[in-house]
């Protein structure tokens, strides 16, 4: 079953076409990685799917709810962790979770349960009393992703979740994301090819707002004649492999 289905989705900003007629299906429980150079349209596509911006034309369905006509229903089944670390700076880790859970209408018992689950899944218990602004970049990003799980989404959007993290923090976050696989459908955008290779079930490659390729990494290798995602990506978007 396609949890996400986009139908000729298009977004224009004045004279710039950010997303150009994207049609895509993402299946239930899969981790789908969107790759593309800067300005390829990945973040705009996610913003449309999370109802943060309206498409210029076309439509998309998340769990069969239209992003145009059923925004409230879409919002009730999704959550997002944007590329910036979106946490309340002067609140502690515990208060951040409590705040986000309360905003999502959780009862006191549900908030306690959410806290316990996230402390366990993300090892956040050891920093629960620390203010978010005092955490390292890796911990802040973990908290940011943890907050996206508070609402127990069916579809999770991760926009460049490991951007700017050192290699150890990135690998730790991969472990966390891997643990989420299968529990929900995940759409992840990234600039790191090895991240897509390590985590994704299927890969989509965007350039200039268009979706150039959708498939498994094996299919990508077969189509480009390369044996790693980075070379295959460069071949696909028309870059110079010898540069």
């Amino acid at each position, binding site marked *: 079953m396609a949890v996400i289905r986009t139908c000729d989705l298009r977004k224009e900003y004045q004279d710039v076409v950010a997303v150009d007629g994207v049609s895509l299906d993402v299946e239930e429980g899969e981790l789908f990685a969107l790759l593309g150079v800067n300005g390829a349209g990945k973040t705009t596509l996610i913003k449309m799917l999370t109802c943060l911006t309206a498409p210029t034309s076309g439509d998309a369905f998340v769990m069969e709810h239209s992003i145009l006509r059923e925004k409230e229903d879409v919002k009730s089944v999704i959550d997002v962790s944007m590329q910036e670390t979106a946490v309340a700076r002067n609140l502690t880790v515990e*208060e951040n979770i409590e705040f986000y859970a309360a*905003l999502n*209408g959780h009862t006191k018992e549900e908030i306690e349960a959410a806290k316990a689950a996230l402390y366990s899944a993300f090892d956040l218990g050891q920093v629960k009393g620390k203010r978010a602004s005092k955490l390292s970049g890796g911990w802040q990003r973990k908290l940011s992703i943890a907050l996206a799980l508070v609402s127990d989404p069916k579809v999770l959007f991760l926009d460049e979740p490991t951007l700017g993290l050192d290699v150890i923090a990135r690998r730790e976050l991969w472990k966390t994301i891997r643990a989420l696989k299968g529990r929900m459908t995940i759409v992840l955008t990234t600039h790191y090819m090895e991240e897509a290779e390590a985590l994704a079930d299927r890969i989509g490659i965007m350039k200039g707002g268009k979706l150039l390729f959708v498939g498994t990494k094996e299919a990508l290798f077969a189509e480009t004649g390369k044996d790693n995602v980075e070379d295959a990506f460069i071949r696909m978007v028309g870059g110079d492999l010898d540069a």
Partner: protein
Amino acid sequence: MRNSIGRIATLTKRNIKEIIRDPLTLIFMLAMPLFMEILFYAIFHTMTSQFEMKYLAPGIAVFAQAFLSLFAGLLISLDRTTSFLTRLFVSKARPYEFIFGYTCALLPIVLVQSVLFFVVGGILDSSFWSVTMLLGILLSLVTAFFFIGIGILLGCLCTDKSVGGVASVIIAGQSLLSGMWFPTEGLGKGMLTLMRILPFRNATMLLQNAVNGYGDLFADLISPLLIVLAYALVAFISAVLVFRKKMRA
């Protein structure tokens, strides 16, 4: 409706924590104006009536409110630039709930400001004590709406880097155009007209007249109140419209 009130309460609680845990907020909104109140009273109150406590305390109360524009703007612009607001926009909260959340978080600070400056004023000058202080405190909530509205607007339009510079225009406006730091008698007609039509002098006069008593109810109280309310309304409506536009963008 119940869900909406719950979300406003949650946003308000978070915003209060963000504000009071920033030491700069407490320094600029409480400590610095309090220091100025004590200093200017101690040095100048015998030299010029301008700095008698009955004028100084209400003036300082409004002056301190000008910093609400800066800190409300800073809070919102930081929420925007860190994508914290974007994350919240994915929740079911609506634009007006965010605006209420920011506003309700600042109103207790306004109350603390007014009570603090009036009580300290009363301690320094016992003749300042009066039951009309309560009217002054009540009306300080009205004048605060103007500065909060401007702050929300700036937070929507400026980055966290630029909001300080733009908000300083409001703070400078309150300082220079309120007439609290210098006598207005010698000023030119044009300047006086400007002060009369802008909200800064009217906000200060409103609180001074509320606390000290008034001769002409309309000229001394209702007219400045209406002018401040008009500016507050324009600031708030603009803030809501810009916030909604940003939320949809």
